[in-house]
């Protein structure tokens, strides 16, 4: 053991520069796993800690309309339960806020919360400057705003803002407030800023008109641990009433925990991908290292060292490097955890501490050690094959071509262990299998290409130029590294080009969506009596009339199926409230009719509906079925006459009728209580868009105007940030490729030195040696680039078609750049690694030989 450790130390001391790459591979891989896992674990811890505060209470009853008397009665029975310690009501809506002091300031879409005195039941409202929050701050039309919005509207405490038809005074700046999960924030990607006013002021400001997008919430605080008991109490009446929802913080916590567990698995899988790529680097570095240490190994065997001693020494060295690399990886992860949370700015509705978790650190270092062991073992096993006879004769091979069962066993162990590791990291055996399958498959394909290439090159021996012949000949001479380089650079090119292609396609998709979009500004909550005025105002300011879509809230209460539809549905599936619309000319929608026939563009006598296919399949509805709706106590029976399929690609910004699940033929709903939403293609200049928003909100305070361009700009920024992370991954893959490449070049260095020395002695100028080297690596780089780039086309096409179902377009410029970059990179690394081959004087080399 003493010898093993001493030897490991001596070797490391002498070879640390060569092993730096090994060390870096581990550090980057472990750093990635630890930082990504830590992030997910910290998020989970934050959710566990803040679940009640995020939810606002232990239990919640929510509704999208004013409390109906029967529901109110049921809820009041709740209030009186001995399990309830406290309760409060919250009202939330999306609306526009504007500065009262600056008439030119652009209105901003916000989520407005009206709260009562008891709010919050959990957590606390934290205000800037350590100001203590009391409900009194909201009385007499006081308002609290987040700091970002304060800056956006150029406000300070004491300034006034307008919401609906009321003017509020800013009384404080919100740093953190509970209840982020109790009311939707309007947007998955970018939650709107949340403001707080007194409960009564929301209605006072005129923001609760018919059909307005208002959420009514009743929150309950129960005795410790009694939330589940209370959840069972309300009886079936509330649960069956589909217009209301009942939930507990535990359900939300469970859902979020599951989401985060999946996220942790996916993130740590991404980390593992990096580590496995690092593992390929480790394997290559170790292989080169063992090759370079053959003589030392042979000497040690001559001196009495058996395989256990020698293998142990180099294995100890690998593990020591792994430990050191892991420590550096932890530092690296520490730095990453400071950067990564910025990517989630504004996306995560709660605060969490950045930093490493002990569990992630242990997992990362453990996985790092395993990957190191797995990837360094096969090259280290080669030590067993080194004969002590090597000290007497350089060529000792040739007499042993037996099957090496230990190596085969090691290879099998690696595949199985990697499969287990990736499945554990990804949380799915299928994903682990796909990853390992793809890795092994790609490696095999590249290997086959390498073999084919060498066969092809052998037939090209009669090349006219000496430099060309020598350069190409180097690719198949004994001990060549053609396959290894092809694989390393091919995989690197594949990863980087595929990422670039995917990113460019995604960006192009966003551009396409916007240019195709008929509308990029949306008007929400237009009341019936405002419709004409809104239309004319928008037409004046935007230069085009808006598309106004009516929304009628109805509940499906029954289905009478046609005789040819034997399907049934449980009664608990009915009763849910839906916003339906009516539209004369259904042919103008973007949907494709897949069953039945669309109506003539004339009002119908009998009510009839067209359904979106996904809705129809949920309710097992077909053409000819009769749907029975409840419209504010009125019963409407409508016949299904068509089913449409939607092209979701146009859904982001087009916002037309086609998105509706249920469209009525005009004639049945015109007199029903309804509200309207509008969509318009806004003017291009930002100032004019702002003016449109400002004037509309000024004239119609209850109407919200959402600018999709803002949202898209935000999404773009996020995509760019994510791309940065992805590019970092790509850069690492490329770095691994470079490491493997330079390692492979180093393996043949002595051979090359000798050959170049002889050529120089025979009269070759330095220039000729340079040409030969460049031709050799040029051919390799070109082939690796073309192979990797072609594979990238196939990969991104498959991802687009089968995984994200997005349209895919070839972008030849990216592929060409990929090939050129691979070509230049391989030539540069090859030439630099062979620098001394080209420049060293021949005499010294020949003497040394």
């Amino acid at each position, binding site marked *: 053991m003493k010898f093993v450790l001493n*030897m490991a130390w*001596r070797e490391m001391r*002498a070879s640390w520069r060569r092993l730096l790459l090994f060390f870096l591979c581990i550090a980057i891989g472990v750093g990635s796993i630890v930082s990504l896992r830590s992030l997910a674990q910290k998020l989970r811890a934050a959710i566990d800690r803040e679940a009640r505060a995020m939810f606002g209470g232990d239990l919640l009853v929510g509704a999208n309309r004013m409390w109906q008397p029967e529901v109110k009665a049921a809820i009041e029975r709740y209030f009186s339960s001995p399990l309830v310690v406290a309760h409060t009501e919250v009202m939330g809506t999306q609306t526009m806020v504007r500065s009262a002091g600056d008439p030119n300031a652009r209105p901003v879409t916000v989520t407005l919360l009206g709260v009562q005195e008891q709010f919050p039941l959990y957590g606390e409202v934290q205000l800037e400057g350590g100001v203590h929050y009391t409900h009194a701050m909201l009385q007499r039309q006081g308002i609290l705003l987040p700091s970002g919005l304060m800056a956006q509207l150029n406000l300070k405490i004491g300034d006034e803002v307008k919401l609906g038809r009321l003017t509020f005074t800013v009384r404080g700046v919100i740093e953190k407030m509970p209840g982020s999960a109790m009311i939707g924030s309007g947007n998955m990607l970018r939650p709107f800023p949340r403001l707080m006013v007194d409960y009564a002021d929301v209605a006072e400001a005129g923001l609760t008109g018919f059909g307005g997008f208002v959420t009514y919430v009743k929150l309950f605080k129960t005795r410790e641990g009694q939330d589940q008991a209370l959840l069972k109490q309300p009886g079936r009446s509330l649960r069956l009433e589909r217009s209301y929802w009942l939930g507990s913080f535990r359900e939300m916590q469970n859902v979020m925990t599951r989401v985060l567990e999946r996220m942790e698995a996916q993130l740590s899988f991404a980390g593992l991908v990096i580590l496995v790529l690092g593992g390929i680097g480790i394997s290559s570095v170790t292989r080169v290292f063992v090759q370079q240490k053959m003589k030392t190994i042979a000497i*040690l065997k001559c001196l009495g060292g058996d395989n256990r*001693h020698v293998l142990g020494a180099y294995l100890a060295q690998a593990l020591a490097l792994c430990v050191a690399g892991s420590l550096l990886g932890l530092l690296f992860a520490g730095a990453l955890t400071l950067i990564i949370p910025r990517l989630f700015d504004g996306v995560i509705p709660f605060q969490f501490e950045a930093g490493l978790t002990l569990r992630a650190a242990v997992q990362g270092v453990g996985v790092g050690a395993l990957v190191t062991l797995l990837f360094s073992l096969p090259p280290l096993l080669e030590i067993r094959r080194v004969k002590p006879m090597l000290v007497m004769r350089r060529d000792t091979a040739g007499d042993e071509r037996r099957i090496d069962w230990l190596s085969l066993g090691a290879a099998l162990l690696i595949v199985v262990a990697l499969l287990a590791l990736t499945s554990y990291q990804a949380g799915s055996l299928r994903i682990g299998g796909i990853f390992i399958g793809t890795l092994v498959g790609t490696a095999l394909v590249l290997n086959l290409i390498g073999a084919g290439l060498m066969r092809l090159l052998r037939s090209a021996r009669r090349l006219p130029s000496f430099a060309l012949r020598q350069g190409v000949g180097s690719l198949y001479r004994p001990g060549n590294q053609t396959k290894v380089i092809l694989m390393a650079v091919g995989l690197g090119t594949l990863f980087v080009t595929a990422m670039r292609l995917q990113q460019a396609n995604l960006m192009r998709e966003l551009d396409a969506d916007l240019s195709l979009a008929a509308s990029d500004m949306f008007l929400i909550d237009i009341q019936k009596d405002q419709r004409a005025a809104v239309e004319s105002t928008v037409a004046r300011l935007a230069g085009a009339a808006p598309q106004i879509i009516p929304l009628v809230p109805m509940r499906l209460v029954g289905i009478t199926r046609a005789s040819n539809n034997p399907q049934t549905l449980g009664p608990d599936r009915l009763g849910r409230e839906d916003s339906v619309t009516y539209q004369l000319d259904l042919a103008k929608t973007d949907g494709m009719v897949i069953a039945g026939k669309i109506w003539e563009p004339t009002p119908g006598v009998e009510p009839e509906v067209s359904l979106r296919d996904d809705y129809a399949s949920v309710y097992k509805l077909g053409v000819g079925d009769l749907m029975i709706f409840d419209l504010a106590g009125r019963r409407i029976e409508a016949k299904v006459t068509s089913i449409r399929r939607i092209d979701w690609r146009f859904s982001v910004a087009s916002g037309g009728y086609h998105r509706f699940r249920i469209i009525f033929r005009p004639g049945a709903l015109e007199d029903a209580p309804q509200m309207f939403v509008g969509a318009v293609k806004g003017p291009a200049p930002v100032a004019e868009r702002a003016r449109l928003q400002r004037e509309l909100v000024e004239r119609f305070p209850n109407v919200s105007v959402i600018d999709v361009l803002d949202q898209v700009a935000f999404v773009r920024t996020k995509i760019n940030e994510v791309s940065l992370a992805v590019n970092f991954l790509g850069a690492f893959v490329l770095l691994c490729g470079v490491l493997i490449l330079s390692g492979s070049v180093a393996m043949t260095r002595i051979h090359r030195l000798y050959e170049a020395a002889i050529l120089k002695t025979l009269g070759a100028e330095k220039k000729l040696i340079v040409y030969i080297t460049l031709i050799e690596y040029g051919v390799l780089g070109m082939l690796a680039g073309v192979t990797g780039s072609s594979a990238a086309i196939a990969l991104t096409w498959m991802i687009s078609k089968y995984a994200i179902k997005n349209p895919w377009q070839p972008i030849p410029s990216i592929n060409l750049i990929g090939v050129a970059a691979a070509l230049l990179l391989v030539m540069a690394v090859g030439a630099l690694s062979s620098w001394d081959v080209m420049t060293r004087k021949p005499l010294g080399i020949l003497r040394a030989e």
Partner: protein
Amino acid sequence: MNKMINLANVSKTVTSGSEKLTILHAVSLSIPGGQFIAVVGPSGSGKSTLLSLVAGLDYPTTGDIELDGENITRMGEDELARLRGAKIGFIFQSFHLIPSMTAYENILAPMEIARLPKARERAQLLLDEVGLRERGHHYPSQLSGGEQQRVAIARAFSNDPTILLADEPTGNLDSKNGSHIFELLVKLNRDRSTTLLLVTHDHALANQADRVISLSEGWIVGDRETEGRRDRETEGQRDATDSSLHLSVSPSLRPPVSLSLGPSVSEEGAT
């Protein structure tokens, strides 16, 4: 006298492409303990092959090899490695020091592998003995050829081997350095009564041995006792008549350890 090395009908055939080439033909040889044997012959005569077979670096195609009464022919590689560590010292033409280790560590390595006690003290004494006391912390690349070979000699003796194998130990050195090295080798060998098998081209060096075995094309073509041996036996001193050699012992060399190197060394040194 006991047979330290015994070869019975040992041959070695290698395959080159489809052709078989016999490098050594049915060699039988018996070497008693403590003898200094020189193996001479032109290039390709099978000298180094013979040496590597005796060392257990390679397996014979036919025949048996016994070292100190143990048949090594059917030993596994690890068993052979342990045998080398315990009984054999090596000196090579191109030194074969481990470049990542200092001179001192190179001497230490075989003792560490064999887990010998007091290895550090012993390594330091051997360094002193070969006159490199001040160069112990230098790496092989920082030493001259002669110095490297002295380190190699110290390493070869570090395990107190019963058999010392030397493959052209002066072949890469100039004549002056070569003489010093040879002198040192022979002196240490005699002091420790080691069985020395020396492969050389140089007949003058070979004549310093007790016995010279000549090889040609894989056959033993000569096996004779030298005059030097007879002289030594009668005079108990070295033959100084060969004017082609300058055999002065380096002044820095000390007499063999009187020694705290371990019981066997001191006993042998005393005998």
